[in-house]
């Protein structure tokens, strides 16, 4: 597992390798130029996008693809906003038809206030989409049994939340995330809830394979600086995990020699 100092294996999902373990969103940025600069600063190779109706009256902006270079960033379409398996499947099919890839970040929301997932619907949608040849990355809660079921259903990656979407509350249950990582063999990408760099670092120190975030960068006062901070935090947390931390002790142990003191 541990590589020669500072070296890491790539994050590989369904046979596709990524050097960056940070996946970033494209929503809620002040403007498209800020988003593009933040993407570059984050070092991310994969960005998420949503599927929505075209605005026929052109009162709103054009599609996001005018501001993302698909040659540089792998597009991960989501099913955000879907509350049933049927809706999520419909959105996934539309996303695939756009013609970029077969990856789908599958979200089925079960509660409007917390945006927590409906895991029963999520499993139903996963099974159908896997059967249709999709590479499913499932956004879920931090429940181990659900994560196991999603892996059994054929998910290419399981994406438990750190805390609710857009909350910025950070990693609320490190134990649950560690447990999921220990028990599953597919990549574990923590999705949602990271608020600042220390949250990202602490999350990666649990041994997970990557982090997906949007709001923490987009809503920072300086999104580009935060994107850079997140890049370093994800790398630092990953390295610290690979390095293997020292044991926690309840007592102090001197770092300097106790012998050779002057009498």
């Amino acid at each position: 597992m541990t590589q020669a100092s500072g070296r890491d294996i790539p994050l590989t999902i369904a046979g596709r390798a990524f050097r960056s373990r940070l996946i970033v969103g494209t929503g809620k940025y002040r403007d498209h130029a800020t988003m593009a600069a933040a993407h570059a600063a984050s070092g991310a190779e994969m960005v998420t996008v949503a599927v929505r109706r075209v605005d026929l009256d052109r009162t709103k902006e054009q599609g996001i693809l005018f501001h993302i270079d698909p040659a540089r960033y792998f597009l991960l379409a989501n099913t955000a906003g879907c509350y049933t398996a049927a809706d999520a499947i419909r959105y996934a099919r539309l996303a695939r038809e756009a013609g970029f890839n077969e990856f789908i970040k599958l979200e089925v929301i079960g509660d409007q206030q917390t945006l927590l997932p409906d895991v029963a619907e999520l499993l139903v949608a996963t099974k159908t989409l896997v059967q249709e040849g999709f590479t499913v990355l499932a956004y879920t809660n931090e429940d181990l049994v659900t994560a196991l079921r999603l892996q059994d259903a054929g998910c290419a990656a399981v994406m438990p939340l750190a805390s609710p979407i857009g909350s910025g509350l950070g990693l609320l249950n490190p134990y649950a995330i560690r447990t999921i990582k220990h028990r599953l063999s597919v990549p574990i990408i923590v999705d949602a809830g990271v608020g600042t760099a220390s949250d990202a670092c602490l999350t990666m120190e649990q041994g997970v394979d990557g982090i997906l975030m949007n709001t923490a960068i987009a809503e920072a006062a300086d999104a580009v600086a935060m994107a850079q901070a997140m890049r370093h935090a994800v790398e630092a947390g990953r390295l610290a995990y690979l390095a293997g931390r020292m044991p926690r002790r309840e007592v102090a142990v001197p770092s300097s020699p106790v012998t050779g003191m002057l009498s």
Partner: protein
Amino acid sequence: MIPATISVTVNGEPRELPDGLSLLQLLDHFALDPRTVVVELNRGIVRRAALDQTPVRAGDSVELVHFVGGG
């Protein structure tokens, strides 16, 4: 002579469109680039290559979607 129009629901809104359009012509009608838009006709996806052979008929429900910013 006034050209015939038909009522079609596009993205959830009723629209009066010239009769005899294909889906490709419908995209052109709204000045949309077929390379960036995915078309759903009566809940079924229509592949890009089939857009110009697929007629729009009265009462059809058409959804035109694309990628937007999201997390």
